[in-house]
């Protein structure tokens, strides 16, 4: 855990971003870091997102070398967001400067103890922070391995440590839907871990979270779940019910093309707000159970959802809008965690989504983020949870 306190009060907060398309980790780290540190201001923290092409250990070593004493964290991702750009291959280094306090924690293995990993990572990141000062605000980023463990439990563990009243954002490190392995960074490269980054500032953070998915099928009851798999819906085989739902809408889905169809038709869990928490079914198990990216509560009513590019882009704009509104004014920076599957659904229009968000946040506002494998955040001012196929935007007032 590392905490740096910036003593230059009243100087504001800024995020300087450096980018590199170099395929070699050393050269990419050198180029992106040089750009990010060109501002000559004292760095508080560096946030790093790299595409999956880089060897994580080599990249971490190169970044540590380039960043020196600057504490840094991040993860690998299917794509890196820098403003309106989406880098399918490349590295982005964002350096925070100004009146900001930061702490980093890392814990694992999330595959063995997801709840405790989430709790310990936040506990570590909060070491060195005293009780929140009056007029100060906190944001927490969770960057976790979403392939290994129950990410919902990671988030619950993190909440149990830090509580509500915090702006939560983040997501699962990704590898462009190959579902092999991911890397998390906290000064070093980790696998099967969760990284927590705590930010504290004297101005408010604002978080917006939206997805744009709309009901497609009728409500069905999850009558048997097995961890992250939905075994039965309405007391019948889950895949059978899912397929029947598609048939009623004039569509067809088989086991073979399930992944393609499910990409556009996730499951939604209704909330009291009338909104839905999205669960992404990624495969059909031999017994017909739908394996999702995160846990589906047993006994909950689900709906098969559908998304159209327009609704998804509108939702992203709304997320940016909410984030800006909650931050309360001109923004110092925005961090974006956008589900990788949205990029697949939107195709080239993903750039349109980024552009819309950038316009809402402010063309001059530095925007950094990545395509994630599941997202962390809350709808409104509430406790966060793990979402799928969703856009989360965290902004800090300038």
């Amino acid at each position, binding site marked *: 855990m590392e905490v740096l306190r910036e003593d230059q009060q009243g100087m504001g907060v800024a995020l300087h971003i450096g980018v590199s398309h170099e395929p070699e980790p050393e050269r990419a780290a050198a180029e992106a870091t040089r750009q990010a540190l060109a501002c000559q201001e004292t760095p508080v923290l560096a946030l790093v997102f790299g595409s999956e092409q880089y060897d994580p250990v080599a990249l971490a070593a190169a970044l540590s070398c380039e960043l020196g004493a600057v504490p840094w964290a991040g993860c690998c991702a299917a794509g890196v967001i820098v403003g309106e750009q989406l880098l399918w291959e490349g590295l982005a280094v964002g350096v925070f400067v100004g009146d900001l306090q930061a702490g980093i924690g890392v814990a694992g293995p999330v595959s063995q103890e997801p709840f405790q990993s989430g*709790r310990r990572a936040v*506990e570590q990141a909060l070491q060195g922070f005293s*009780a*929140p000062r009056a007029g100060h605000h906190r944001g927490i980023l969770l960057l976790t391995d979403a392939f290994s463990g129950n990410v919902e439990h990671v988030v*619950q563990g993190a*909440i*149990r*440590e*830090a*509580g*509500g*009243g915090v702006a939560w954002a983040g997501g699962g490190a990704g590898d462009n839907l190959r579902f092999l392995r991911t890397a998390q960074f906290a000064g070093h490269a980790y696998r099967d871990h969760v990284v927590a980054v705590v930010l504290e500032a004297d101005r408010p953070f604002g978080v917006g979270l939206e997805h744009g998915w709309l*009901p497609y099928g009728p*409500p069905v*009851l999850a009558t048997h779940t097995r961890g992250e798999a939905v075994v039965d819906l309405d007391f019948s085989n889950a895949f059978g019910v899912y397929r029947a739902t598609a048939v009623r809408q004039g569509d067809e889905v088989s086991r073979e093309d399930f992944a393609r169809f499910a990409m556009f038709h996730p499951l939604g*869990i*209704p*909330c*009291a*707000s*009338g909104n839905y928490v999205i669960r992404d079914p990624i495969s059909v198990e031999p017994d017909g159970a739908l394996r999702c990216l995160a846990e589906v*509560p*047993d*006994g*909950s*009513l*689900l*709906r098969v959802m559908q998304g159209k590019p327009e609704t998804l882009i509108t939702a992203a704009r709304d997320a940016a809008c909410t984030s800006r509104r909650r931050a309360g004014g001109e923004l110092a920076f925005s961090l974006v965690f956008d589900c990788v599957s949205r990029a697949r659904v939107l195709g080239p229009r993903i750039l349109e989504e980024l552009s819309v968000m950038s316009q809402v946040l402010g063309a001059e506002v530095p925007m950094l983020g990545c395509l994630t494998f599941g997202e962390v955040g809350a*709808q*409104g*001012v*509430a*406790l966060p*949870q793990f979402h799928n196929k969703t856009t989360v935007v965290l902004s800090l007032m300038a």
Partner: protein
Amino acid sequence: MPVLPFCAVPASDVQPPEEAVSLASVLQELTSAALDLFDPEGLLDDFLQRLTLRLGCLAALCLELSQEGRVLLLGSAGLSRASRELPLTVQVEPQGRARLSEVNWGALSFPYPELTATPLGLWQFPFTTAPEEQSPPAALLLFFEPSQRVSQQYFGLVARLMKVVRRALHHRGLDVRVRQSEQRLIEQKRLLEAEVVDNARLYEEAQQAIRIREEFLSVAAHELFTPLTSLRLAAQSLQRTPSAQACPSRSLLQIIDGQTRRLSRLVSELLDVSRIQAGALALEFDEIDLGQMTQEVVEQFGPELERSGTPLKLKVEPGVTGWWDRLRLEQVLQNLLSNAVKYGERKPIEVQVKAEDGMACLVVRDHGMGISPEDQARIFGPFERAISSRHFGGLGLGLYIAQRIVWQLGGSIRLHSEPGQGAAFTVELPRAGGSAQRTLPTGPEALH
């Protein structure tokens, strides 16, 4: 903390079908979560966290009011670990304790930073955590950001859920008490089992000690008996030589003879104990006239009776015969007579032989100090005596050996005594012989 009653959205403002689906889904999931609380492993914090997530609250607190008016945090969601560790020092107004429905939980000032950032809306649901009428009041408090949209129907949903939660908590209270009782029983059982194991170990150690002692006695008695016999024979030979008759040391030879005789008797007793305890006391049966045998033994005791000045009256019924081991039966009578002389305080001793109900009966009665009731049970044990060994010699084996011989002959030995009135030992023997050998006691009662 600025807290206001949370204003929910009227149900009519929401699209009915969507609202119904959401309501049903949230109800389904949270009912399942509430039912998990019946499981002793279920955590109230987990239920509150799911409730908070599904309703979109900022935080949930479950509070209880103690008899002293202190507010206790039973569970929470949305509070950091640091906040949960903060002491709750808030007090409820006195009238709140009198009427549960009037406790204004929202008026409490909490120390939690999570609840101080913005004005918050509040829903409160009073309940009790135990079925008793006097159980302390409790409440679930849900904190919302005022801009959060939640339908009024969810208030009813939470109120209904709290009925399940209340029942679960009642059940858990009972369950905890049952488990505590079970734990106590298990603990007591464990202690008893440990005690049994300990007793068994002590018993085994005691048995081992006895085996060692008996082995020692057996070996020691055998090793002592041979040289003592040689010594005694040598002393008697010296006494019989003509020169010894006039020798001034003749009296010394008599002392040596007397003491070796006494030592030989003691060692013989030890050997007998060793044989008895090893079950190796061999008997040789022959037809014996008990009256005649008794007369002969009494005659042998003549010098001792004379020396002690004790008169003896013998009353023998003729024809009391049976199949017994002569030497062992003589030994029984010698032991009884020896005790009568020793403890008879020179008062007359009566010896009687008679036949009674087909049994041969031998009675040795003295009129000495007698034996107290509490000593009567133990004097048949080995190395036991009614009077301290400082006052009377011997090993305390005579009655033990006598009883075991009588038992092995198929008879019994009884004692009747009152302190200061003397003692009467009655030996009853089957006249048919010792085939009906009495079963010897085993187990702890055989421990000596």
